[in-house]
Each structure stands twice: as C-alpha cells, then as structure tokens.
C-alpha cells in the first residue's frame, strides 16, 4: 500500500500517470476524505510554486486536470458528503465565455474544501440571483476576461441588491481584467487575478484565516 505522502509528492510534481495509479491503489483502503485532504495539501504547494514563479498557468491547468481525474475515481466512493468550508456560487459573467481561469479557481477552491456551484459561462444576472436564492451560498464569485465583463459584473451586484440579497453574500471578482478599479466600479468586496490569492481572500472574507 503506497502512502499518502507519495501521492502528495506525485501530485506536486504533476506526474499524472503515477498520481492515478497511486489513487487507484489507495482508494481501496484509505477513506476518500483522507485522499481529498492529501490533494488539498498538494494544491497548496502547487499554488505556492505558482506564486513564487516556479510554476505557470500551464502547470495550473494540468493540476486542475489531474485533480478532476482524481475526483472521478474518488467521488463515487464518497459515502457521506464531507462538510464543506462554505459554498461559492461561481460563473463567468454575461457576454463572456472565457472559463479556463474560472475552472482553475474552481479546482483550487474545491481542493481547499469549498463547495462550488458552477453556473458555467455567459451567465446572466438573473441566473446569479436565482442561484443565490436556491443555494444560499456564503460567496458569489464572478469571472470575466473581456473588458465588457466588468459592466456585466456591476449588473450582477446591482441585481443582487435589487433582490435584497446583496448583504447575505460576499462577492469576489476574478479573471485577467479585474483590478482595484474594477472592484470599486462593480461594487464587489474583493478581487483576485490569481486563483490562490482568490481562495485565500474567500477564506479571509469569511474570517476563516488570517
């Protein structure tokens, strides 16, 4: 029986084949939540390497893909749901179909223990409002890569206000074109153009971590 440390190392080094063969073996005896915890540890290190400039976006995309394949093996064996840290309703905003960054953020947020309700791309303000009503999330995350996405984000915040839901959620915007200007313009609480920073800020907004 291989150890979870071996899995963590293989994941950090992005050795896809080794990761998958380790998971196949581990899953027979190790409880799925422990495997997920190992994944979380690995993604934290991957995130650190990204921030230090040792890993790049292609490594994050690859890590996201490896994580997805691990989940494919582990999830069916998960008897009871692990209690999530919090729920995030996430989507790429109206008019925009870029989702590579959103998907990376999703993978890292999930690995960190968040439950992510993914609304996909080109998501209208109405669909955000509806999802907030249905899932009662702590956080709304919006992604956008087009300059017009900033306007769409503003409209989502506006729609949440109109629906009387704005104060129930924290709002974070992300994607390559967001910055402090965009945060102010849209009325969001936080912004991040980096998935790891985004996950950290989500935790901070909920007072979970310094």
């Amino acid at each position, binding site marked *: 029986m291989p150890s979870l440390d071996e899995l963590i190392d293989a994941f950090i080094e992005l050795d896809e084949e080794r990761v998958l063969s380790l998971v196949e073996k581990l899953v027979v005896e190790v409880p799925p939540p422990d495997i997920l915890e190992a994944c979380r540890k690995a993604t934290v290190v991957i995130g650190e390497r990204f921030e230090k400039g040792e890993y790049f976006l292609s490594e994050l995309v690859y890590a996201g893909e490896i994580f997805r394949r691990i989940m494919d093996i582990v999830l069916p064996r998960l008897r009871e749901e692990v209690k999530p840290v919090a729920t995030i309703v996430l989507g790429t905003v109206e008019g925009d*179909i870029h989702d590579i960054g959103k998907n990376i953020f999703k993978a890292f947020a999930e690995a960190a223990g968040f439950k992510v309700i993914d609304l996909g791309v080109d998501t209208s303000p109405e669909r955000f409002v509806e999802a907030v009503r249905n899932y009662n999330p702590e956080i709304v995350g919006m992604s956008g890569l087009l300059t017009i996405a900033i306007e769409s984000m503003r409209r989502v915040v506006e729609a949440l206000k109109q629906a009387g839901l704005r104060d129930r959620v924290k709002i974070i915007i992300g994607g390559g074109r967001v910055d402090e200007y965009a945060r102010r*313009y849209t009325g969001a609480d936080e912004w991040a153009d980096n998935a790891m920073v985004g996950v950290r800020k989500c935790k901070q907004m909920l007072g979970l971590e310094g």
Partner: protein
Amino acid sequence: MSRSRSPEELVKERMERIEKAIDLKEPDRVPLFIFTCGDVLRKYAKGYELYFNYDKTCEASIRFASEFPVDSLGVVTAAEGFVFSLAFADYPDIAPSIRFWSGPMHDALLDRYTRWPGRELPEDSILQFIGGQFMNVEEYGRLSDDPISFINEVILPRSCLNLEKPGSAKANASLIRLGVEASRFLKFLGDLAVGLAKVGIPSLPLTFAYAPLDFIGDFLRYPTGALLDVRRYPDRVKQACEALVNPIIKIGLSLKPAGAKYAFIPLHLNEYLSPKLYSEFYWPTLRKIIEMLYDQGIKSLVFFEGWHDIHLETILDLPRGWGVAYFEKTDVRKAKKILEGHTCIMGGIPPSMLLQETPDKIKEYVRSLLEEMKPGGGFILAPGVADIPKETPSENIKALIEAVEEYGRY
C-alpha cells in the same frame, strides 16, 4: 498646429510618426495607436450592426476617428478566422480576405467556432469566439503530414455545418457565398481605410500570421487541450507546429504585392507557458515565422497578450528592428529596460484606468509614463487590451489625446 493641415498631410505626418517609432527612431512626438474590437464603437452603432453591416461599421469608425483624432485606428469587429485562411494558404488571392471572420461569413458556412448576436445569441450581445475540439490526438500525424489538406478535408467538414458533406450542392453553394462575402469584406476594409484617410487618419498596411501552437489551441484542440497535449504527446505537438510554419508564412506573404508591410500576430498561449515549455514548443516556430517574414521585407506587429514578462528576453533572439512588440499587461517600462534600441514597444494604457479615472489623473499618468518611455524613441502609446470600453467617458479619451500631444513631443 495640426488644425490647419489637410487630411492628406495629416495622414502622411501620422504615418511617418508611426514608422519612425517602429524604426526605433525619435519621431516628432510619441504616436498614439488605438485598436478596437468594436466595444468603443458601440457609442455610435449597435453591436449587431457592427458585425453584420459593413457600412455602419465604417461609419461608426469614421465618427470615432473624427471625434478622437488618434495617430492610427485599427478596427476588428470580427472573430478569429485564421483556420479559414490556412485552408486557402495556397491561394494568396483568397487566404487574407477570410482571416477575420465576419457575421455574414458565419451565415455562409455556419461554423461552430463562433456565435453571433441575432443568430445564436440575443441581438444586443457581443460576438463569441468559442473555439472547440475538432481534432483528436490520433490525428496529429495527418496534420503534420499535410496541414492544408487536413484542414480542408477533415477539420472544415467537422467545424462547419454547411460543409458537412464536402462536394455536396450545399457545401459548394456555401463556399460560393463565402467568396461573395469575402469580396464584400475586402471592399469594406478598403472603404474603411479611405474613409479614415479622409479625416486624416492612416491605417497600417497589415498582413497576418499566427503562432503554430496557438493555431492548434484555437482551432483544433482547444487551448487547454493543446496545453495537455504538450505534456502527454510532446513530440506530436512539436512536429505539427513545424508543419504549420510554411502555410502560415504563405499567408503572411499573400498581401505583400498589395503593399502590406506589417504582419499582425496576436499570441494566446504565451502567458500560460513556463520558460522551458515556451522555448521548446512555442517560440522556435513563431521565431522562424517572424524571421522569415522579416527577410522578405515584412515586419511583425506581435500582440503579446496577458503577462509576457518571463519571456521578454527571448525577443532579443530576433534581429534588431524586427517589428513592434505590443504588450497587454506586461509593464512597458520593464520591457523597455530589456528591449531598448532593439524592439519598438507599444502599449502602456490600462483600459480600466480610462474607464474609471478623471481626465486629470489620466494626463498625469501619461506624463509620468512618457517621461520614462519617450527618450530614445521606439515607443507607441496604446491601450493595453486592444479595446476601450464603451462606457469610457469621452473626456477621458480626449484627455489621453491631449496628454500625448502635451507630453509626447520630442
């Protein structure tokens, strides 16, 4: 001052300004270049009209240019269509006319790469290039053996509903329709250049090229697919990139007889790649394309999208004066430290600042930026993301123009 010049004189003066900067010299002042994918033009026309009505687009562009006299205006209210150019790379009369994919071209072929307002999307939305995965990993060999045949025989029938059965009446009729549209589009480009010149604004004589790995990501395997292939099937990817070099150069040269001088090359996967992957899978073939075009008298205007910081040094591999490095998020000051005297740098204005700040702040920003960027020449000021948001207050765009006039003089 410029008020008294005729439009012809202004065109000449502005063109010289830009050309001097590209040639790494100090012009009379720093040129200001604006590219738009149509967002800012929605001040004058509906999104739908910009994609389907060439006359309206022309009119909107000319109105923008009259209200905001910049040194050059590039207008692209169309989607990426390089795959169609590549299919016709052996036909220089056709290839460049379908490099940008317009709404009516989509109507002709019903391609799955793009979605349009008033078609798949509500009328007031903006166009969507969604790309897709139209090739599987087993097909890299066929792509490498003969890219042009592979695109024509395998990819277009998969990616275009109307070409599903090659040789059918429907497919043939669709290609004739595409031809008609292509010539209307060319006429539009001509009308636009003439119209802009009438208000004193020159258009750069452009031709087109592409980075091979981006071609694979955008049109064949999807961007993430291409990135995973680099990991899982490195040799296949490398071979395919090599095989794409020649057809791409053919397209780049297709407009040379018509006077094209600059090959526009927007980069997509550059920011994703580590220096190691970049120098192995991306740069060698892109570099070859830029150098071979340069040898034939065509300089390149490369749009380094996203952050290009970690790859800046590789630009020094190119011959001095090879063309223009247009940066999106990379700090142009940092780029200058590395590229000064070697490469003309373009960019510098974050669009969110234009949208948000006051005219005074914008002027102050331009003043301090130009203080560093102006000396020695070789710099073109431009918004960093190939567009200006529609909601940008007019005073802010005016402030930008005034600022470059005030602080950009040599």
